[in-house]
């Protein structure tokens, strides 16, 4: 089945989009500033024969040639973390400060968790949750390699997340980087669309709605929730945000995307969404030369 064809009505220059989805992605690493500075990481990579190129929108992101091997000294020291460029967007938009209380609701395997910890300068409290104990093992290993110590790891269903271990206190900032159909990762994983079905999209969308609702409830009035996916499907993006806007006391905030991006869509297959979902941003492979992504910033009211 040609999954991408369904996006022809919402994607400008559809043929360029389709062509971009077939190109492999450059390998990107993020400098873990808990353990070193960008300059020293660049120097260490150059000493190992790499030619790192800084992303202009985020100096901690370094593009390497695609065929580089995985293991090297900077990796061993936790100075770098392999992370697709676009996946550094949601933590950048959430922008937690040192000393705050932040929540990563669907955290494993930890690329965004460790990025949040670095933005918080390993201070305050960062709670990383995942429903899969197996995936949490990977998260813990990644966080320890990065030298993160402000982290609480929990294993529960984010749809009914309990704040009890944290004294009932809500969070300042929450990231919901939701499980999704992963269509936007097709450039690094050409099989990403092989298992696609409408039923799977509907089923994961129901999960996403439950997780985002609980995330808004678990965040203090005036706090921020960022919702992101790596899929193009409006059912998992704007429809989820629309559902939560109608049921929880929150609004969607405009933000400047540091990567080229398009507004959220307000109509899809005959359904109309809250017009403010246009403030969300869609990142497309042919416009930003990254993977595909969706990102919305919510402000909790009250």
């Amino acid at each position, binding site marked *: 089945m040609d999954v991408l064809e369904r996006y022809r009505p919402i994607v400008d220059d559809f043929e360029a989009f389709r062509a971009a989805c077939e190109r492999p992605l450059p390998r990107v690493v993020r400098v873990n500033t808990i353990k070193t500075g960008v300059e*020293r990481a660049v120097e260490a990579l150059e*000493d190992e024969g790499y030619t790192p190129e800084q992303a202009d929108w985020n100096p901690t992101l370094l593009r390497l040639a695609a065929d580089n091997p995985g*293991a090297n000294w900077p990796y061993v020291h936790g100075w770098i973390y392999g992370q697709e460029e676009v996946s550094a967007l949601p933590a950048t938009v959430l922008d937690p400060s040192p000393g705050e209380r932040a929540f990563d609701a669907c955290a494993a395997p930890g690329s965004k968790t460790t990025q949040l910890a670095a933005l918080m300068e*390993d201070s305050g409290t960062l709670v990383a949750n995942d429903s899969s104990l197996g995936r949490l093992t990977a998260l813990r290993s990644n966080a*320890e390699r990065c*030298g993160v110590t*402000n982290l609480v*790891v929990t294993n529960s269903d984010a749809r009914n997340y309990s704040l009890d271990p944290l*004294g009932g206190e809500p969070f300042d900032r929450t990231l919901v980087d939701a499980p999704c159909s992963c269509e936007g990762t097709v450039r690094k994983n050409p099989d990403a669309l092989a298992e696609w079905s409408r039923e799977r999209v509907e089923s994961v969308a129901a999960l996403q709605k439950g997780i985002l609702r609980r995330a808004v409830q678990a965040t203090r009035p005036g706090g921020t929730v960022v919702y992101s996916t790596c899929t193009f499907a409006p059912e998992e993006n704007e429809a989820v945000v629309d559902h939560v806007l109608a049921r929880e006391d929150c609004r969607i905030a405009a933000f400047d995307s540091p990567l080229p991006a398009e507004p959220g869509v307000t109509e899809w297959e005959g359904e109309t969404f809250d017009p403010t979902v246009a403030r969300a941003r869609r990142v497309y492979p042919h416009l930003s030369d990254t993977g595909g992504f969706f990102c919305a910033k919510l402000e909790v009211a009250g």
Partner: protein
Amino acid sequence: MNDGHRFDRLPATAPGRTDEGRPTREEVLAFWEERFGVAPATFAGHTFWEKGSGKLWAFAGEAPDPTAVEALGMVFLRVRQEHWKPTTEAAQRFGREATRNAIELDRKRAERFLAGEDQEIEWDGDWGYLIVAHELAGGVEPIGVGLYLHGELRSQIPKGRRRDL
């Protein structure tokens, strides 16, 4: 009593101790200072916890009731054994401050150490656990922990962290 499935905070000093085998915060700070020269102030922002027998965690955040959580900061020290042993991650994160019982390897030896190999080496300092470092990008950077005995440095890099560069 120690319950291996629960996080218990280390008592500050001996009078607060309810579990005989559990070290105090004071003892842990003294260990890092005496063995490696790492100043107690290095850990000023961290609370210390035990979960799992002898597994100590250093945590920079706040969690009023952490009994049900999976992890709290970083596992940084193994105790309840004759010689306390820092983890690889703790050596990397806190071992930069080490002024003694720290050994610097050249590139070849550092690679062998990372691969998990034991190697004969000259060392006129103490036997026991050493912080093992090498030069990287203009500075000396700790890799992990080695056990020095009988002229041999035994790599303590856990299997999952070993790499053949």
